[in-house]
């Protein structure tokens, strides 16, 4: 069961471990990242920084549905970027709310909030997912002011 979904290109890092996990009753963090799923060093580092009472799995978006269907634990779904989130939703995972924490900065992207940058492709994905009744909230931390996206 998914109890929280966040898009964050930094994956498991300070804001997630110190800011969000204490506020959410998750038992497991499921990281969705093509990059990290192939990178044992990244996975090792994430395991070291995640408190030991949380389970951790790092998988590609294409494996999300199969993984979540057999999962009994309460899952904090942590997705690297909007493209991979879109892939997860397309595979048949139903989401109601998505928190956007950090996205990768690249030339030509517009800043929506500290650490959150979108290009037109990102905004298209957000608009598409909004039409599937997914609500977005841009917030680095639970106590941050929410930034608005009008798409």
């Amino acid at each position, binding site marked *: 069961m998914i109890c929280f979904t966040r898009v964050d290109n*930094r*994956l*498991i*890092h*300070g804001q997630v*471990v110190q800011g969000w996990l204490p506020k959410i009753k998750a038992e497991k963090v499921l990281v969705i990242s093509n990059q990290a799923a192939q990178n044992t*060093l*990244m996975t090792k*580092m*994430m395991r*070291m*920084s*995640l408190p030991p009472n949380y389970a951790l799995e790092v998988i590609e978006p294409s494996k999300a549905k199969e993984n979540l269907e057999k999962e009994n634990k309460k899952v904090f779904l942590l997705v690297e970027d909007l493209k991979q989130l879109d892939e997860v939703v397309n595979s048949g995972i139903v989401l109601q709310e998505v928190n956007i924490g950090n996205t*990768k*900065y*690249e030339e030509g992207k517009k*800043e929506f909030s*500290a*650490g959150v*940058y979108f290009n037109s492709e990102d905004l298209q994905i957000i608009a598409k997912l909004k039409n599937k009744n997914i609500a977005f909230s841009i917030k680095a931390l639970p106590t941050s002011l929410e930034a608005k996206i009008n798409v």
Partner: protein
Amino acid sequence: MVKIILVSHGNMAQSLLETASQIGSFDISEIPAFSVSGKGDLESLPQKLLNALGKNGTLILVDTLGGSSCNTAVQATQHLKNVKVVCGVNLNMLLSAINNREKMDLTDLTRKVLEDGKKSLIDISDKLK
């Protein structure tokens, strides 16, 4: 001399360096201090680190285990032999690194900095009871 580099969230690296310069005697320009919090900072960090490496080993001191500062520093330097990343930097650790960087090699310096860092955590109120 072992090169020292600081990496943190926010202004901690820069501020820690400035604070250390009020206590220890060293040239502040010898120690690069990078943040991962500004626009594009995280993306440009790997290259900045590679450009800043020293010839006789580099000790990268980062703020916290599992932070983007630590994760990125580890990944950017994972294949380099003469680089070490230590997390949990505090003022005593930085001063220890600065004061010993000329007389120790990277391995000994790392050990010394960790030792001094651990020694610096004291419940002084309890000690004075």
